[in-house]
């Protein structure tokens, strides 16, 4: 597999000549950077360099050390060892202000913009605004903002409110702010997470314009196809160590994936399973919502069906429709042959559906509460003493909580420990485990391994496997495409609100999913 095979690189970049980074000049050099946290070595002797005018991708799994590295570069953390060099000279960066003075700017995932304020005001955030006779000089504010936008070649009215703009325009405003602060090195922390493919395209075009003016980008992303599309070089971290630096000539898909995952990684093996495909558990017919249209499939008992697609493709919407998080506009669902109406998640739970949402902290964890309460909440009705006052039988509740946490192998001080004191992986096991006692037969798992460590990932895969063997039906979605190949029997790939294709068995591969998701067709 080579870079040319990556479908999302739809040829448009071939027209633009390579920016030709000046290989002699490294603007940012990382030398032996080490960061020790109590108990963990987050960065271990990491060295690489970013050249002038290049787009340098920084890759790695969650927890590989990317965020720590960025925080060390921009002064949010102080490194335990090693050096950061700018133009070959060592610099001491102990605060964001130091980073700014050294010409480094970080554009975070959430862009740090104030949505209710205008573009001009956002471009001046934290700066002294021009005044005339003691009052703000608005025409000067807008004139300066216009200059900044012209420098990065963005054509957005300075009076527009941030909330009126498209996501990629947010990214460009943030980049413009960095450029106006004379940043030569711009660190982009997953800027494309909220973007649709054509928005990504426009963002990349403007990034290329800036590289020709001598700006350099350190670009963090999980989307490999984008990396092939835009990066001149790529550095991969794994478990806090440098796993490899690639340039255009040796940047292959297999090589980069190998560097990210590691040869010995538990992820690399395709899980061999056997399934019954008889005994239809759930039949989805022509299910449609605002962003998904005409979804039909059968889920057999013991089957794991994947729902894949880029953000906005309808994959997420389908998961939401199946759990009653959003109401369908057409079509329906039958469970065990009986039609079910899903007006809200309560209906879905009553119909025997369980749901693990993607964003654990925002959508699944009951903060400041005990592990026990987090496990038993959706099944509390089973442990009542009587139905009128609804007094809870604590003995039975505790027993259920212990049973689930033991089966899930949750590592914790005890069931009364605060959920917030558990690691991400153990929290996720609690979130998954809470559905074991509701009697659910259908499990909707939306990125169940998001932000958990490799060990917990394997345990979660094992559990999914176990549930399938018990005859549960599982619908699986993930932001990490390689997971579909590890987990699913078949995968529906979504594009533009519809099912673009179905993959089965050995055809469930990351490139195939990518191809379909990007709107391409598979070779016959």
């Amino acid at each position, binding site marked *: 597999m080579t870079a040319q095979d990556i479908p999302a690189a739809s040829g448009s970049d071939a027209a633009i000549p390579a920016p030709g980074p000046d290989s002699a000049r490294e603007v940012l050099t990382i030398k032996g950077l080490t960061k*020790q946290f*109590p*108990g963990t*070595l987050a960065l271990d002797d990491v060295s690489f360099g970013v050249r002038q005018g290049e787009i340098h991708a920084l890759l790695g799994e969650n927890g590989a050390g990317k965020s720590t590295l960025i925080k060390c570069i921009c002064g949010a953390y102080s490194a*335990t*060892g090693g050096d950061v060099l700018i133009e070959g000279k060592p610099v001491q960066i102990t605060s964001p202000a130091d980073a700014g003075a050294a010409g480094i700017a970080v554009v975070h995932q959430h862009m740090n913009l104030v949505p209710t304020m205008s573009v001009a005001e956002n471009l001046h955030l934290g700066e002294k605004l021009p005044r005339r006779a003691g009052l703000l000089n608005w025409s000067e504010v807008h004139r300066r903002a216009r200059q900044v936008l012209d420098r990065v070649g963005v054509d957005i009215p300075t009076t527009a409110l941030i909330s009126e703009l498209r996501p990629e325009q947010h990214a460009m405003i943030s980049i413009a702010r960095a450029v106006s602060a004379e940043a030569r090195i711009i660190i982009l922390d997953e800027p494309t997470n909220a973007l649709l493919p054509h928005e990504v395209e426009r963002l990349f075009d403007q990034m290329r314009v800036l590289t020709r003016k001598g700006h350099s980008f350190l670009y963090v992303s999980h989307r490999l196809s984008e990396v092939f599309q835009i990066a001149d070089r790529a550095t991969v971290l794994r478990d806090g160590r440098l796993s490899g630096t690639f340039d255009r000539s040796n940047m292959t898909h297999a090589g980069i994936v190998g560097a990210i995952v590691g040869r010995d990684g538990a992820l690399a093996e395709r899980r061999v399973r056997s399934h019954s495909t008889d005994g239809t558990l759930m039949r989805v017919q022509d299910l449609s919502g605002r962003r998904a249209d005409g979804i039909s499939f059968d889920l057999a008992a013991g089957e794991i069906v994947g729902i894949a697609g880029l953000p906005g493709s309808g994959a997420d919407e389908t998961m939401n429709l199946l*759990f009653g*998080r959003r109401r369908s506009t057409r079509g329906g669902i039958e469970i065990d042959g009986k039609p079910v109406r899903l007006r*809200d*998640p*309560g209906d*879905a*739970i*009553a119909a025997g559906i369980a*749901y693990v*949402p993607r964003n654990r902290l*925002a*959508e*699944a*964890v*009951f*903060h*400041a*509460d005990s592990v026990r*309460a987090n496990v038993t*909440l*959706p099944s*509390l*009705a089973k442990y*009542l003493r009587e139905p009128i*006052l*609804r*007094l*809870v039988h*604590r003995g039975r509740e505790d027993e259920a909580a212990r049973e689930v946490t033991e089966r899930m192998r949750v590592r914790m001080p005890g069931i009364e420990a605060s959920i*917030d004191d558990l690691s991400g992986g153990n929290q996720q096991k609690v979130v998954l485990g*809470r559905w074991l006692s509701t009697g659910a037969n259908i499990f909707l798992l939306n990125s169940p391994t998001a932000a958990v460590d490799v060990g917990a990932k394997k345990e979660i895969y094992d559990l999914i496997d176990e549930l399938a063997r018990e005859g549960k039906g599982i619908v699986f979605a993930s932001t990490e495409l390689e997971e579909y190949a590890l987990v699913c029997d078949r995968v529906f790939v979504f594009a533009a609100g519809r099912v673009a294709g179905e993959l089965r068995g050995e055809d469930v591969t990351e490139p195939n999913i990518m191809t379909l998701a990007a709107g391409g067709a598979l070779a016959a």
Partner: protein
Amino acid sequence: MTATTSDNSADPQPRPSFDWITFLSRWGTLISLGLLIILFSIGRPEVFMTLRNMLNILNQVSILGMIAFGLTICLVVGLFDLSIGAMATFGGYFAARFLMELNVENGFAVVIVILVVLALAALIGMINGALIAYLGISAIVETLAMSFVATGIILGISGGRTVYATEIPEAFTIIGQGKIAGIPNPVLILLLLGFVLWVFLEHTQTGRNMYALGGNREASRLSGISFSRYALIAMAISGACAALGGLVAGANLGAGRPQGVGDVYLLNAFVAVFIGASTMKPGKFHILGTAVGVLLIGVINNGLSVMGVQTFWQYIVQGGILILALISASLNSVRRS
């Protein structure tokens, strides 16, 4: 032998040192309550630390306590109820007014009237809950607006005239003035209410679902818990508890005043509940904590006046303790993040 510092920092510490921050954030308010009691006992042993004065303190805070317990319920769900002051006035005035108009004498009829007034207050609370839940209005603004409406209705119906003791049956005033086995009735009502609401919050599914909603509303929805239903219940309880407090205040006073009854309690109730949320279970609103907060306010006010300290000190000490309580609670969360 010398070891480099960088090597040492990597070693896991086998013996964890005593965690002062966690200790203080849990027990700080209880410790300060204890210290204040000791302080006042030493200062005026013959007056402060007597059974009579202890019952007196409880009696003084009983109305505040009833209102604060109700407020605890809606803060558990994550809703602010600023209408409790007006609802207290509502309860006190309308109980007296109905009793006067209906010329009720016997105890059974008085109980019926009281239940009707509490039901009306609960109904207003449910309207609050419905507006907040179904229209997505901010609870703070909606309950503030409702408190204006309620205040206006009371003033309009009363014409500003107080219902006096001679117009109210003794079966009613005894609620606020009588004693059973030497314990003032308001204290008994407070203890009973506190127990019921504690069982409700900690030991019923309804209460547990309320905590879940307050902890994470989206996660609750995804667990099948309907926010609107519990918002209605919580606001109804809060309204009824406030009306109960006002009603007991009216019975105690022997008058149904159409204004100024509840306003005193509004801010103190919030202070008590927030002090409570930094007690024993930091960051969590709970009945026992609220009880501690209410007691703290009562002890400060009583103790300082027993010591002969000027009134303004009560405000300063009370405010200072609230700030300390909030700091200790935030220390814990700052460290966690």
